[in-house]
């Protein structure tokens, strides 16, 4: 009977496939794709240099990808509610349904991001440039951020029957991680400036996927000198193999924990 054991996984892949096709045909995926396509061309046209365009792009991606991921995830969950109910009545494991839908959304967003930015950069001669590694890291971080924030979105939507509340919490979560967290972080640095804060700031960075991604890319781009003393500390940590490993590991944790929670909560919920 070993074949039967794999059945939930194959069904999950089927649901993933259908959610993905469904989204790939929706207008919003194209809007998202075209936006990145346009952004890529405009940045390359304005900067006239690949590595500079990568930095500008980072600033956009780090803020925008989480916002799109979290809003799109919540939207998709609420929009497919009745359809989810139809699937729940089928002989399918619950986790297969939600994980399938989740990977469908996160997958289609990632495809829009990678193709939308990839096409202009490749046309501009990315493969002949040494910015290719920076650019790849940027896309990998973008993919991670999409996975993380879509999973957070599904968690928020699962916990809130009320759409308005769900959207509210989603926007708040994004606002907190993208803006407020940094503000609190900076304030704590000023308030406690008499104390050694190197480890605290390292740890604080680890607990916010947006900060983590930003630090990772900035250090890879080797402009940490601009960051002064803190930059040096960060470079000492993130610049090493251990630092790189640790931060990628943290991004993995940030991805896996909400996905795991998604499966756990969906098993115990009434529909």
């Amino acid at each position, binding site marked *: 009977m070993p074949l039967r054991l794999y059945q939930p996984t194959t069904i999950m892949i089927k649901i993933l496939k259908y959610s993905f096709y469904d989204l790939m045909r929706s207008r919003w995926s194209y809007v998202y794709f075209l936006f990145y396509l346009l952004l890529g061309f405009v940045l390359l046209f304005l900067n006239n240099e690949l590595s500079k365009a990568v930095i500008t792009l980072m600033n956009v991606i780090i803020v925008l990808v989480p916002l799109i991921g979290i809003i799109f995830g919540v939207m998709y969950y609420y929009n*497919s509610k*009745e359809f989810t109910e139809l699937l729940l009545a089928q002989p399918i494991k619950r986790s297969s349904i939600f994980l399938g839908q989740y990977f469908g959304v996160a997958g289609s967003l990632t495809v829009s991001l990678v193709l939308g930015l990839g096409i202009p950069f490749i046309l501009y001669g990315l493969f002949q440039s040494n910015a290719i590694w920076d650019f790849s890291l940027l896309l990998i971080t973008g993919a991670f951020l999409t996975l993380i924030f879509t999973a957070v979105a599904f968690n928020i939507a699962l916990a809130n029957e009320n759409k308005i509340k769900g959207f509210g919490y989603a926007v708040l979560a994004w606002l907190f991680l993208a803006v407020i967290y940094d503000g609190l972080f900076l304030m704590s640095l000023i308030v406690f400036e008499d104390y050694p804060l190197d480890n605290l700031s390292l740890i604080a960075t680890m607990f916010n996927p947006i900060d983590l991604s930003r630090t990772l890319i900035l250090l890879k781009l080797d402009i940490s000198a601009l960051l002064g003393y803190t930059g040096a500390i960060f470079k000492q940590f993130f610049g090493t193999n251990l630092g790189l490993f640790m931060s990628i590991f943290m991004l993995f944790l940030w991805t896996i924990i909400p996905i795991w929670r998604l499966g756990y909560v969906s098993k115990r919920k009434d529909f």
Partner: protein
Amino acid sequence: MIQVENLHKKFGKNVVLAELELHIDQGGIFAVLGPNGSGKTTLIKTVLGMVLPNKGTISVMDSSVRDKWKYRQDINYLPQIANFPGNLKVKELIAMIKDIRQKPSDELKLIGLFGLESFLDKKLSNLSGGTKQKVNIVLAFMFNSPLIILDEPTNGLDPLALIRLKELIFEEKAKGKTFLITSHIMQFVEEVSDQIVYLLEGKIYFKGSIEELKTKTGQSNFEHAIAAISTHNNHD
């Protein structure tokens, strides 16, 4: 077919089902009735495993449903609101459900029966409410399962489709299938059902045939008998 024992379910502080006992034998059409908010849909959803009970056991075809999913292979379900992913075409949706269930199906006969041929290549978001309900019915009837659960099957149907639906129900019943149906259309219930299960305040208040209900309430009209049974309780 279905055994429900000591079923409790509450949402927050609101007790929806309390000490509910229900035994449904194989074969025949059981109409689950009751005033709004009496727990009809909740009862159906606990049988389907979509709502998890606080207490009590439910078994379908002699196996407990708790934390299980394979037993749903033997159930066809028509949900109350027919809403599907808008970007899929009708035939893609049908193919998808077939792909998920991996069971022989006879959707072609049903598509012909409800005149859906010209809609197969249309996107679901472009269909009217009634046409969506027809697609919903095709999905619910295309597999051969011993238990069929219909939640408000008449919603939005035109008279011809309604006649076809009744024919379909009788045809499947003749094959020995068991039906659980909820409906607000008493004329439809009277025409199709063999047994009435009347829910009130989370309990089975009455279970029996339409004739028994009429005798119990002293009404000759079914619609009045149903009305009488709910008001009767208030004077107790």
